[in-house]
């Protein structure tokens, strides 16, 4: 049960990463490799600020702002220098590795005794005289797990709400238009280069926020924790689309949340069932490849079998 609540917490906080991948991959139609860099950057900035005694809320917001900077850098390299976003993202992520080392003053930074968001939530929990553990089924779950779950749920739901509102505003619509059809958007007087930059900025802010929350959840930041995050974000994205479809914006946004939670529960189950933790990235990559390729293969198979195939 502890594992389940833990998986739920990770699922919630990493849904911000999935939401970032959704903005770049689905809304802007671009795969943004800055994702890996800004996840680690968010973790590094939050950890370094916490180590300097900065308020956890402030440190988390600053981490998101660092993500904005990373995304905007990729965007500006694309707009001003004409370098493709894919390459620009790789360059920025590579550069960010060094920057993370500088920020953390090394490859690892432990948050063990520091004031973090989950820690603050736990103290608040006890200050309100709530029970020290809660019994679910036949196991008891530590209060700390619950309080950190609650604080992540609050951050994440607020971020999702703000983003969903923004995507329906005049500027948000222009952003979606630029991602969907650049030629039509230019003909409607939308500065598409600016919109790509804005999309990258928003997405990487969310990704860095996820990194900051994740570091505080696990109690340390590591320079390599961003590696492969874009793939796990994609895995959650396609899983969410499989669950809720892509019919409306609301479904897509909720899909990132449900997809991430489902994915983390599956990961937890797989680990319990004996999947070695080292095999996780390989399994995730295979899953994403399969999820992206199999629907196309099925559709082609149906066409080959003729129009009658696939009907009951």
């Amino acid at each position: 049960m502890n594992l389940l609540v833990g998986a739920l917490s990770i699922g919630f906080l990493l849904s911000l990463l999935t939401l970032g991948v959704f903005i770049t991959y689905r809304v802007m139609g671009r795969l943004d490799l800055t994702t890996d860099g800004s996840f680690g950057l968010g973790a590094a900035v939050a950890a370094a600020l916490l180590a300097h005694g900065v308020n956890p809320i402030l440190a988390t917001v600053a981490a998101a702002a660092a993500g904005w900077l990373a995304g905007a850098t990729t965007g500006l390299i694309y707009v001003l220098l004409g370098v493709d976003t894919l390459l620009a993202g790789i360059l920025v992520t590579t550069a960010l590795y060094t920057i993370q080392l500088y920020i953390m003053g090394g490859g690892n930074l432990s948050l063990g005794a520091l004031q973090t968001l989950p820690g603050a939530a736990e103290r608040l929990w006890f200050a309100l005289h709530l029970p020290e553990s809660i019994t679910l089924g036949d196991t008891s779950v530590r209060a700390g797990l619950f309080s950190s779950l609650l604080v992540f749920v609050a951050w994440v739901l607020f971020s999702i709400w703000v983003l969903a509102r923004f995507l329906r505003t005049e500027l948000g619509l222009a952003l979606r238009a630029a991602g969907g059809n650049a030629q039509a958007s230019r003909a409607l007087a939308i500065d598409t280069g600016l919109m790509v930059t804005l999309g990258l900025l928003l997405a990487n802010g969310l990704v860095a926020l996820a990194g900051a929350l994740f570091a505080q959840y696990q109690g340390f930041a590591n320079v390599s924790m961003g590696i492969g995050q874009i793939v796990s974000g994609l895995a959650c994205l396609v899983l969410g689309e499989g669950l809720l479809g892509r019919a409306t914006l609301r479904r897509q946004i909720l899909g990132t949340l449900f997809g991430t939670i489902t994915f983390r529960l599956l990961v937890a189950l797989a680990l319990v069932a004996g999947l070695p933790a080292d095999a996780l990235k390989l399994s995730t990559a295979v899953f994403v490849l399969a999820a992206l390729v199999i629907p196309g293969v099925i559709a082609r198979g149906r066409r080959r079998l003729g129009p009658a195939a696939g009907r009951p």
Partner: protein
Amino acid sequence: MSAPTLEALGLTHTFAAGTPSEQLALQDVDLIMEPRSWVVVLGANGSGKSTLLNAIAGSLIPDRGTVRVSGRDVTHWHEWRRSALIGRVFQSPATGSIGHLTVAENLAVAAKRGRHRAVLRNPLSRAGRRELADRVRELGLGLEDRLDTPVGALSGGQRQALTLLMATLVRPELLLLDEHTAALDPRSTEQVVQLTEQIIRKEGFTTLMVTHSMHQAVTLGDRVILMHRGRIVESISGARKRQLRVEELLASFDRLRNADLVDESAAEMLRRLYI
């Protein structure tokens, strides 16, 4: 006396310059359009008519020449910035609107062409939707009941009609129509042409329309220009335009083709003489 709506002067452009596939697309083209005029551009494939339109819209920066819209020199403006003054409908119905956004969302985006796009304002509030529904009702296509349909699900004709409305939702100084019925079936073509004429006549939009339909060139607009090999070779307006018949245009095209043949046989003769 106000400035002409469009002054395109000395437009010259070569594709793939310096390579074996070099092609002179525009040769010193001048085009001046007075407010509320409607010019139809006719020409064979490769005559430069789409290049002319693209150079005016800013999708292509010509090697030489200047473009002024209502007195403003827009030669060095980005395409998106020019679009604040220019409304456009493209040949493919898929090009002019955003397929995965709904009819209402597309209209909301178009309603802000050349205007400030607010960070906080939701344009599809109840009042906003009602306003858009009223505008779309004028098209007479029943789209007001399909405001929440993704534009990609509309037929080509419906989509072009919607794009036409989107291009004119904010009054454009200049409306560019680039063979906007060429990809449609005959019935949809008729509908969209009718709608085009109705909107342009009612609102008095200054319009530059490229077509390869001689029928449209005869029946629409108040001036026809013929393009050939990157030049404007004939301009027909006034009484002559009003009495213009398809046969006359066909004859013009035949003359141009014969001139080409003469050119080619002359070149062939020269080759034989000197090689």
